[in-house]
C-alpha cells in the first residue's frame, strides 16, 4: 500500500489522511515506551465520545503530546444516497445527520431546494418552520451544554434539563408522530398542518423553561470548579478559527459575529428581532456562555412569532411542487395527474448548481446541489459544520491534559452523525 500523501509533493494535505492515520495507530508501541509516552485510544467506544469517534492520543503522564482524530465510523454515504433519492426523500438522510436537532437539518435542506426552485412558501409554513427551528436550537444547546457538565463530572444538569427538553420532543411527537426523525417538511411547505394546541404547548414551554435554565446556570456558571475547568481551556483565536472553517457558536465564541441568520437571512429571520451573542477568547467557557445566551435569543424569536401564526395554507398550492389534497386526488382528474407526476417523476428542479446555507445549532449547514433537471439531484454535497471543527481538535488539545480533551470535544459539540455524514 502506498501512502496517499507521498506523491503529493506540492505541500501538506490539510485534511487528515484517515488511512495513514490508522496505519500509524497500528504501529508498534515500543518506540513510544522508549520515549516514556503512552498511547491511548479515546474511543471509538468511550463514554466521552458521544457517538462513535476515535482519538488516538500520546500521553506524557497526563499531558497530551499528540492527538489524532480518526473519523468515519458512522459514515452512511448520505451524499451518495442523495444522488438516488428524490428531493423529498433526502429529508430522511438529513434527519440523521445532527440527530440532536433533526428538524433543523430538514428545514435547512428544504430551504435550499425551495430557494433553488424559487417557490414562495406560504407564510404559515414559514412561521412554523422558524418556530420549530429555534426550538430545535434550544434543544440542541441543552444537550451540548449539559453534556459538557457531564463530561466535567456534574451529571445533574443533564437530567434536570432533559426533563424539560421532553416538552419540545412531545410537541414534535404531537405534530409529526415522531420524536427524533421528524421529517415533517416537504418542498413547498409542511407535510400536514399543525395541531390545535400547538401555540399553547409552545407557550407553556416558553413559560417554564427560562426558570429551569436559570437553575441550571446557577449550578455551573458561577461554580469555581467549573470556571477553573473551562476558562481558557481549548481557546482558539478568531483568525485561526476562521482559517479552520469554524461557524456557529464555536466561531461566535471567538468574538466573530458571523451568523447565517443575520448575514444571509432565510425563513423569517429578517423580520424578527434578536441579537448574536459573541464570546472573547473562544474557550470552552465562552462556547458554553454563547450557547446559553443563544437559548434566550431563540426563546425571544419564538415568543415574537408564536402569537400570530397566520392562517391559510400550510403548503404551496402549486401542485407541480406539492401533493394536492387527498380528497381532490380521489375526485378530480387533474389533481390525480399531479399526484401521479410528483410521486413517479418527482419535483422538477431546474438544472444548475446551487449552494444554500442555514444556521443550524452547530454552525453553517450548507447544501451544494447540482441538478440535471431529473427527479433526483445529480450531486449533493453537505457542508457539515462538525467536520470543520473537528480538524482543529489536535491543535486545541495538544499540550493540555487528558481531562481537557474531553471538555474540548464536548464543547465543540462534535456529533458523529453529522461529522461522518
Amino acid at each position, binding site marked *: 500500500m502506498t501512502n496517499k500523501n507521498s506523491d503529493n509533493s506540492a505541500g501538506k494535505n490539510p485534511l487528515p489522511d484517515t488511512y495513514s492515520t490508522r496505519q500509524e495507530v497500528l504501529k508498534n508501541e515500543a518506540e513510544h515506551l522508549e520515549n516514556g509516552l503512552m498511547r*491511548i485510544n479515546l474511543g471509538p467506544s468511550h463514554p466521552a465520545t458521544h457517538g462513535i469517534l476515535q482519538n488516538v492520543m500520546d500521553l506524557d503522564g497526563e499531558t497530551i503530546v499528540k492527538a489524532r482524530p480518526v473519523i468515519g465510523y458512522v459514515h452512511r454515504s448520505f451524499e451518495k444516497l442523495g444522488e438516488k433519492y428524490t428531493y423529498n426523500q433526502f429529508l430522511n438522510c438529513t434527519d440523521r445527520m445532527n440527530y440532536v436537532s433533526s428538524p433543523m437539518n430538514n428545514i435547512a435542506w428544504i430551504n435550499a431546494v425551495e430557494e433553488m426552485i424559487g417557490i414562495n412558501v406560504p407564510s404559515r409554513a414559514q412561521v412554523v418552520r422558524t418556530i420549530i427551528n429555534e426550538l430545535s436550537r434550544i434543544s440542541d444547546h441543552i444537550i451540548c451544554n449539559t453534556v459538557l457538565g457531564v*463530561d466535567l*463530572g*456534574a*451529571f445533574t444538569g443533564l437530567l*434536570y434539563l432533559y*426533563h424539560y427538553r421532553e416538552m419540545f420532543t412531545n410537541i414534535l411527537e404531537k405534530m409529526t408522530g415522531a420524536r427524533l426523525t421528524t421529517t415533517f417538511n416537504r418542498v413547498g411547505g409542511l407535510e400536514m398542518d399543525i395541531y390545535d394546541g400547538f401555540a399553547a404547548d409552545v407557550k407553556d414551554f416558553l413559560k417554564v423553561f427560562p426558570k429551569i435554565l436559570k437553575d441550571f446556570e446557577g449550578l455551573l456558571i458561577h461554580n469555581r470548579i467549573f470556571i477553573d*475547568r473551562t476558562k481558557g481551556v481549548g481557546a482558539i483565536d478568531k483568525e485561526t478559527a476562521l482559517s479552520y472553517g469554524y461557524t456557529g457558536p464555536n466561531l461566535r465564541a471567538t468574538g466573530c459575529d458571523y451568523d447565517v441568520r443575520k448575514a444571509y437571512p432565510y425563513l423569517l429571520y429578517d423580520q424578527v428581532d434578536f441579537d448574536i451573542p459573541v464570546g472573547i477568547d473562544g474557550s470552552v467557557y465562552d462556547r458554553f456562555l454563547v450557547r446559553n445566551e443563544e437559548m434566550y435569543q431563540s426563546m425571544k424569536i419564538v415568543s415574537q412569532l408564536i402569537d400570530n401564526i397566520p392562517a391559510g395554507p400550510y403548503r404551496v398550492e402549486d401542485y407541480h411542487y406539492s401533493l394536492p389534497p387527498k380528497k381532490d386526488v380521489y375526485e378530480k382528474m387533474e389533481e390525480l395527474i399531479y399526484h401521479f407526476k410528483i410521486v413517479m417523476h418527482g419535483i422538477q428542479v431546474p438544472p444548475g448548481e446551487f449552494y444554500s446555507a442555514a444556521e443550524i445549532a452547530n454552525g453553517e449547514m450548507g447544501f451544494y446541489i447540482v441538478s440535471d433537471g431529473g427527479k433526483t439531484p445529480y450531486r449533493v454535497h453537505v457542508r457539515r459544520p462538525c467536520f470543520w471543527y473537528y480538524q482543529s481538535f489536535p491543535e486545541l488539545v495538544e499540550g493540555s491534559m*487528558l*481531562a481537557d480533551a474531553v471538555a474540548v470535544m464536548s464543547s465543540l459539540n462534535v456529533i458523529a452523525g453529522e461529522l461522518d455524514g
Partner: protein
Amino acid sequence: MEEWIIDILISLAKTLAFFGVILLWAAYITLGERRFASFFQNRLGPNRAGIFGLLQPLADGIKFMMKEEIIPKNANRAFYLLGPTLFITIALIPWAAIPFGDTVVIAGREVKLQIVDLNVGILFMIAVSSIGVYGIMIGGWASNNKYSLLGAIRSSAQLISYEITMGIALAAVFLLSGSLSTRDIIIAQMQSPWHWNVFVQPLGFIVFFVSILAETNRVPFDLAEAESELIVGYHTEYGAFKFAMYMLSEYINLITASALITLLYFGGWGIPFVDLGRLGLSVNLAGLISVIVFLVKTGFFVFVFIWIRWTLPRFRYDQLMNLGWKILLPLALVNLFGTAVVALLV
C-alpha cells in the same frame, strides 16, 4: 460461666454486630445514593423492588453474585484478585476503633460500644486507611488496562497528598483534646455544643472536610474513576462481585469518613444542650439513645457527601494537586500553629 468466656462472647457479638451494621448500611447507601440522586435530577430512581425500592440492594447483590466471573487474559491473576479483597478488608478495619455510642451494661459489666478503645485510635485509623491505596494501585496495575493504570496513578497521588493535610488538620484536634483515643476526643467535646471542634477549629474543619472528601474518591475529587475520561478508572476491568467489592468498600469508606467527621468535629453522640447522664435514664437506654444520635449524625454527613457528589463538577488533576499542596497544606499548618500557640498561652 467463666469470666473470660463472657468477655470473648461480648467481643464477638460486638464485632459481628458492627460489621453487620456497616455492610448493611453500605448496601443501603447504594440505594440511598441512587434515590437522592434521582430526586436531585427530577426523576424517580429505583423504586420497583419492594416498597420504595427497599429490596434493591438485595437484588443488586444477587445480580453481582450471579454474574459471570471474567478475568482479563493479560491480567496478573493473583494481583487482580488481591486488589478488591485488600480494598474491602482495609475499608472495614478502621471500624474497630470507631465508637458507635456510649457504654451499656451487659451481664453486670460495663461494655463500651466500640470494638476496642485504642489509646491511639485515630492514628490507627489513619494508618490503616492509608494502606487502602494499595487496593486501588494493585487493582489498577494488575488489570493491565491503560485507563485503569491512569486511574490508579491519579488515585495514589491524590490519596497520599491529601493524607498529609488531613493528618495536620487532625493534629490540631489532638492538641486540644490531649488524646488520640476516639472516645476521649468525643468526651472532650461533651460540655456544650460550643465545645464541638467544628466551632473551636473552623479552619481545621474545612481543611479536614475537603481532605476527607478527597480521601473518599468522590466528586469533586473522583479523578481515580472519572467516568468521562477514564471509563471508570482503576476498576474498569472488574466485573461481577469483584466490582461489587470495590463499590461496597467505597461506600464503607464514605461511612467511615462521615463517622470521623461526627466524632472529631461534631461531638460524637452528644446531643446539643442535653446531658444524657443527668436525665435519670437507665444506662442501657442512654447508651441506646447515644447510638441513635451517632448514627443520625453520621447519616447526615453521608447525605451531605451524596449532595455534593450530585452537585459539583470534577477537578482536573493539576488543580487537585494545587489545591492540596498550595492551599490546604499551608492552611492546615497555619491552623496547627495557631492552635499550638493558643493552647500554650491559655
